[in-house]
């Protein structure tokens, strides 16, 4: 059994080689982290492990054993949205929304390490994520808005 903490709850995963994304989505039913490519190329599966962004599709639970995992479901606190979540709503930064959890998690990690990112830093950090609906300009504005509010 592999022990880890997901969104503040203690969890035990069945085997060290269990894929982290599959574990979150199918075993814990935390389906907010999405599968987009399974190759680390789209960012739809991004979660935070001890505050650092991680492509869950590329990791096993064994690799994050003992760590604090935060998924999109664990971001809002006591019924208040995280400022980044709210900014995505305010900027209408979504279409189908499938990529959005990954973008939000990547943005949260960025703002965590860089409290006043420049537009170029935002663009660079989020270039690892894909939005096929093409809402990039709105996502950029949403992250800038969230950064400005801090």
């Amino acid at each position: 059994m592999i022990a880890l903490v997901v969104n503040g709850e203690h969890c035990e995963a069945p085997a060290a080689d269990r894929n982290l994304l599959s574990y979150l989505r199918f075993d814990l039913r935390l389906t907010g982290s999405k599968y987009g490519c399974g190759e680390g190329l789209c960012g739809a599966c991004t979660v935070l492990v001890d505050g650092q962004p991680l492509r869950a599709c590329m990791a096993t639970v064994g690799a994050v054993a003992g760590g604090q995992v935060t998924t999109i479901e664990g971001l809002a606190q006591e019924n208040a949205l995280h400022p980044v979540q709210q900014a995505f709503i305010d900027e209408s930064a979504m279409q189908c929304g499938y990529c959005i959890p990954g973008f939000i998690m990547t943005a949260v990690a960025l703002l965590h390490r860089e409290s006043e990112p420049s537009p170029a830093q935002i663009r660079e950090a989020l270039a690892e994520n894909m939005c096929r609906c093409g809402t990039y300009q709105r996502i950029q504005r949403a992250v800038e808005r969230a950064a400005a509010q801090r």
Partner: protein
Amino acid sequence: MSSEQPSAQGLHIVGEVALGFTPPRTSYARAAYSGAEPDTQQATLLIVRPDGTAAAFSGKVEYGQGIRSGLTIEVADELRVPLEAVEVVLGDTDTTPWDMGTFGSQSTARVGLQLRRAAATAREVLLELGADHLDLPASELECHDGAVASRVNRDRSATYAELVSGRQIVRELQDDVELTAAGQFSIMGTSVPRNDAIERVTGMALYSQDIVLPGMLFARILRPPEYGAKLVDADATIAERMPGVAEVVRNEDMLAVLAESDQQAASAATVIQANWSEPASQLTQFDMPDLLLHTGRDPFLTQEAGSLEDGFRQADDVIEQTYYLPYVSNAPMEPRAAVAQWEDGRLTVWAGTQRPFGLRAELAQQLEIEESDVRVIAPEIGGGFGSKSIYPVGLEAARLARSAGRPVRVAYDRAEEMTWASVRPAALIRIKSGFMSDGRVVAWQSDGYHAGDRPFLGRRGSDTPYAIPNVRVTTYTSDSPLRTGSYRSLGGAANHFARESHMDEIAARVGLDPVDFRLRNLTHPRFRRVLEAAARMFRWSPGASPSRRGAGVALGLDVGSYVAACVQVDARGPEVRVERVSAALDCGLTVNPEGAKNQVEGSIVMGMGTALYEAIEFRGGRLLNSGFTRYRVPRMNNVPQIDVELVGEPETPSTGAGEPGIVPVAPAIANAVFDLTERRVRELPIQSHLDGSSSSEVIPG
């Protein structure tokens, strides 16, 4: 999900569904709808519930176009209730009215009108009920903020809840009911945030990939290594004994592992020894231009006027050129997935299809059961751009669940999604034009060769919108080694690329500014308006191309909407960079301007991808770039500043906003590259062409 019982309390507006929907106008939309007959039974369209809130029902689906928000706005406005009081229930064959499918950007327009009529009918009934309840003449009453009130004395009022609770009233939709006039909307035309945004930012929105049922088995289907390959034999003895494997199913052409987890199914699938037949074709993407030209058949005249002979005789000059577009992939972020469950002989399938009712018909037919024993639920859809009309995983999951006696999930991985979904048809278009030295185009001959067996794919947008006296436009259907399917604007994007590039070539030849040249050849006021608006937004400064400034323009018409875009490119770095796009769209009345702009921005980004980077590479039936390492799509750091203006008039009926934005993008970029570099790129994707890694040398003629 809401599951309203028809017998529940409240005010029910019912409508004859097949009559309520206008049959599709266009042949491509009609052809996309195959099979199922419209359910002519009456269906519930709208319920004013006992608590005064409303539920509206549509068989359309939400795949990112914001239809749920759009319909909510229309119903709320027409019913005179706040947005929060309206729930829109979509895409469930048990609870929503029959629907042909969600495509062609017509969703909001057609269904919106029907639901507005339903809401307006409900409003009339509520006025009657209010008159009764308040003992006042209906003429003195009006509906406002969820209540019926006297215009004279505001204190005399009754809420919708008071009027309908404890009662069950069923009324028929009135087709001739008076709708709110354009100037009287309070919500329509304003920008409101989407009502399904919270679910999307919190991870609560459920897509097909996210459906997890108790006791569900995960399937891994062994796909042929390439199109056309058939399973010869397979040895699954080791796989069957792997941990977690419930069963290896061999069912004629299908070989699938069913296991307790996705990982177990995938591991077991890798140890199956399968032999496949070799398909005959060894064609590659480099063979496409020749193939298109030489296999073109079924010529279809889409536009004809005057006499080409006269036109070319009269012309001062003639240009003849060929344009080519490769196959591209829709590549939605969510690969297709379906979960099927059988309970007491009744089948439920969760599938993110654009045609839940079409899938229901297909399932009933293939599984030899009654349609009434099938329920298809379309959850949120993670993008599709037209391609999710075809949804084979639904039937696969249903078959496997039937044999396993447990719910089964079938989900494409990225490579399966790229390989087994459809691609946008490759196209080769030859244009010959004759023109006067003052820039008047007098003859236009266009022959378009589009890959695929469905001719309608290539016809969209093939006609020239310019006032040219002598015209002949013909489209042909050519062989396609890959499976072609729907895509944003379909052949419209190809036809616009060819036409608007060619128009630019003429402008350059006669030494006219590309905007001015187009205006000289346009009479239609809506085309002129979008072109002038885009040029103004862009601060277009007139000058003939090539001006070395890197500015390009193009215009177009798609799904009844008029569009123009100006772009600025830079090519100083190793790559062409699009810096700025100004686009104007006239799609008539806009229900939700922010939503429409979002769609246009997305279309521009997608168009930019096809213009610069995207092309499917293949050898025989095998895709060589079925993942995002080798199939490059636009990312955050490639995206230009995009400005969109909606210039339609509210009195003009709504037309689509989801697709037209793509049609001017590729030609405007190609024209801007010419303006900057003097290199005319007649083949997409432009970046590969400039890098010298494309099939350009083989364009015939």
